[in-house]
């Protein structure tokens, strides 16, 4: 039986955010927005969902005088991401 895909990660924007955060120490909102091409409002909503699930931490601070929101993947988020990727591989090999 194929594993169930994590519904929180099985959406384009949240998956894109998690994929970026999995490869970096942390990333600020501007960078995530630029890389995903999403709107600020939508990105903000999805970041909140990932944060509420404990997959990422969100730190609101300042870079000089400019407000800056920094996101960082948590160990639980990384674990969920790895499980999701492994599940995807199983789905693909089952369809071959």
């Amino acid at each position, binding site marked *: 039986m194929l594993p169930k895909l994590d519904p929180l990660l099985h959406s384009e924007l949240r998956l894109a955010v998690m994929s970026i955060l999995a490869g970096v120490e942390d990333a600020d909102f501007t960078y995530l927005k630029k890389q995903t*091409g999403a709107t600020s409002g939508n990105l903000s909503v999805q970041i909140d969902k990932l944060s509420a699930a404990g997959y990422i931490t969100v730190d609101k601070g300042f870079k000089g005088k400019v407000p800056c929101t920094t996101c960082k993947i948590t160990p639980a988020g990384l674990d969920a991401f790895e499980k999701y990727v492994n599940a*995807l591989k199983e789905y693909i090999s089952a369809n071959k």
Partner: protein
Amino acid sequence: MENIEQKNEMTAQQSLNIISEMINDSRRTILQSSAKHFMLWGSLLIFVSLVVYWLWQSSGSPVWNVVWFVMPALGFPIVRILDRKDSDIPQSKVNMNIGLIWLTYCIFAVCISVIAMLWVPMNLTLVLVVIFGFAQCVSGFILKNWTIIVSGFILGIGGAVAASLLFGAEQLLIFTIGGIMLVVTGLIIKSQYK
């Protein structure tokens, strides 16, 4: 990159495509930014080595080696300015490790130079060029680029031989070649992650 808005209907293949696209795009952006550092330090190395070479040749005095200390004094503030421009670009393990390798090289180079100049005379060029080649080589392994790995080996080992055969100001030209290699490394990274 196309806008990614909220879609829940995805096949497994589409999901994997998003993951690989995001990881590759992010890696490209980050490494493109670190290429600038290689080109900056390479250019500085070429410039300072040629200035010291010219001053040493024309005066006949090795005291002009003191000009080497201009390099970190000039380089680090420029790096800060460059990094401020790219302040939204995050640190990945790859560029963080490369940065640490070269920072360690810089600390070693400054400490050994001070010791050699003040207390224990040694073939400083030989020591510096070997660790330079080593740092270049390890950077190549991290970037998974054989051109950079091989250039590091050639510079480290060839440079050690050259440093034993050449004397005086001529040894400085080994660093000019090292600087050229750093600039080329930056250009390779830029083209590899275009």
